[in-house]
């Protein structure tokens, strides 16, 4: 649907997008991740034809965005980072204007009602946009992008500045839309991307550093698995039982309350020891109070990819066999300890959230 080949964009001497190549298939929801200034917005602005590029090519449904801009733009609905709203217009007037601007050929009233229904702005239809809250403005911006039922939606940080309830609503709207449309979505909220997107492209300093599904990204970089277990019973006795299991790499113990302790078990390779552990503990009458399975979250992957300097080497190393992954494992244990420090402060809330997101 969208084909981007060797795309480069320079602002003066600064290279904002550097030789980026990727493809978005029809019906795919693609997440675009990257720290601020990584080139996400620039890439989106180029795909939508707002700015041009220095070299490379961008085709939308086979139409070149520079050679055949009007045909290409017809297929795209764009919600920029700041929704492009005319503050002195009412929502209804604004959407009518966009309807005319896009020269849409379907029934006006029906279509506008339908779009307003989708993003739930019917109740503010006659209000001036300048009197709307940030959340409603964002929705009006989304409505604008949806007008004309474009096959492709490009959304630049669609949930920024919204409250958690609105974020959930917008996310479900996007997921709903993604069933029949191609969507590119940028964000720096990682659970959001892993919740909505089928594929993620991580971009840093204008270059693509990784491209895969959220699950594969965290798996390929994880290497080890960490179990957080809360077990009742004598500390030393439990530790002994745990150590007797196969494939246990290391165990850290911390006090929870009374005779209940938290254990952080690192396993060798990616073996799943949960079943073995359960039977062993049950045999010794040591009840498990809580158990959580901690994968390297997308957040950790993101940080690893975007903060370590020679990022390209990193990926190739991690994609190689375990031998080459040695240096990575050290990194992981580092970040793991950071995560643990957070854990002991706030309980395991953080991990739970990430897991939820992963499960979705």
């Amino acid at each position, binding site marked *: 649907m969208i084909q981007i080949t060797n795309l480069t964009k320079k*602002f003066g001497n600064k290279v904002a997008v550097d030789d980026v190549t990727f493809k978005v298939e029809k019906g795919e929801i693609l997440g675009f991740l990257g720290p601020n200034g990584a080139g996400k917005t620039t890439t989106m*602005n180029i795909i*939508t*034809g*707002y*700015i*041009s590029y220095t070299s490379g090519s961008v085709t939308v449904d086979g139409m070149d965005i520079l050679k055949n*801009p*009007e*045909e290409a*733009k*017809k297929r*795209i609905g*764009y919600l*920029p980072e*700041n929704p*492009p*709203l*005319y*503050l*002195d*217009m009412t929502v209804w*007037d604004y959407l009518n*204007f*966009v309807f*005319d*601007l*896009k*020269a849409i050929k379907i029934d006006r009233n029906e279509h506008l009602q339908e779009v307003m229904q989708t993003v739930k702005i019917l109740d503010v239809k006659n209000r001036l946009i300048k009197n709307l809250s940030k959340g409603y403005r964002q929705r009006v911006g989304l409505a*604008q992008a949806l007008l004309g039922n474009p096959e492709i939606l490009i959304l630049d940080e669609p949930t920024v500045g919204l409250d958690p309830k609105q974020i959930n609503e917008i996310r479900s709207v996007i997921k709903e839309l993604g069933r029949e449309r191609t969507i590119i979505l940028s964000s720096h909220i990682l659970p959001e991307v892993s919740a909505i997107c089928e594929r993620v492209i991580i971009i840093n300093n204008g270059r693509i550093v990784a491209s895969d599904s959220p699950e594969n990204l965290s798996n390929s970089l994880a290497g080890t698995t960490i179990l957080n277990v809360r077990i009742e019973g004598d500390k030393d006795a439990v530790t002994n039982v745990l150590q007797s299991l196969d494939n246990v790499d290391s165990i850290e113990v911390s006090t929870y309350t009374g005779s209940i302790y938290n254990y952080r078990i690192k396993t060798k390779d990616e073996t799943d020891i949960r079943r073995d552990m359960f039977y062993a503990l049950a045999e010794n009458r040591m009840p498990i109070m809580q158990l959580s399975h901690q994968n390297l979250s997308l957040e950790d992957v993101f940080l690893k990819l975007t903060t370590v300097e020679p990022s390209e080497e990193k990926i190739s190393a991690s994609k190689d066999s375990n031998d080459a992954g040695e240096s990575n494992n050290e990194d992981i244990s580092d970040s793991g300890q950071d995560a643990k420090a957070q854990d002991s402060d706030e309980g395991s809330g953080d991990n739970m959230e990430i897991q939820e997101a992963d499960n979705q």
Partner: protein
Amino acid sequence: MTAIFKREFKAYFTSPIGYIYLGIFLFFSGFFFSAINLMYTMTDMSPFFSNLTIILVFMLPLLTMRLFAEERRNKTDQLLLTAPVSVFGIVMGKFLSAAALFGFSLIITFVYPAVMLIYGNPLLSTVLALYCGFFLLGCSLISIGVFVSASTESQITAAIISFVILLFIQLSDWVSSLFNNATVKKIFDWLSVTNRYQEFTDGVLSLSSVMFFISFCAVFIFLTISSIEKRRWS
């Protein structure tokens, strides 16, 4: 293009600008009409329009200042430039909306020739030529304002710069008289929008003058398009 034209024209009346422009323009046109044509009981409208050009210099920057500067500041230009509309369509829509408001204010002043028709015998062909010339002059000045607005991000800067340019054009006769060099003089005289306009005051609707004004607008519309395109490429 029509969508943009309609929005811009409406926007003049959802903000105070349209009313301020109409109020001041009509006040002065009424004032000049009564002070010149009525007081001296003459049917020649050329002094009336000559005085009104000074008002244009002050008022037209008001109409053009926000056309592009505001879009850039509010980032709404993203909507226009990513919509399936050509840059030419965007620029024309905006240019025509300002021209339409200017034309609308001129139509209201048709009252004055009507008054003269009732009480006197104005030469209708001359009046018509004057109106055409004045409208073309205004459009040329608007095209300059549109270009300036597209080159800045602040409405105030756009207003001041276009005001200075329009003033300079008004004074171009005087500027050309500063030079002794015959060629430079000739260039300034040729460029002088007001000089061209003088032909209309004689009641002559010459094709060359009409073409001059139309190409003048075309040049500035082209420059506006280039300045927007250039920003996309930089």
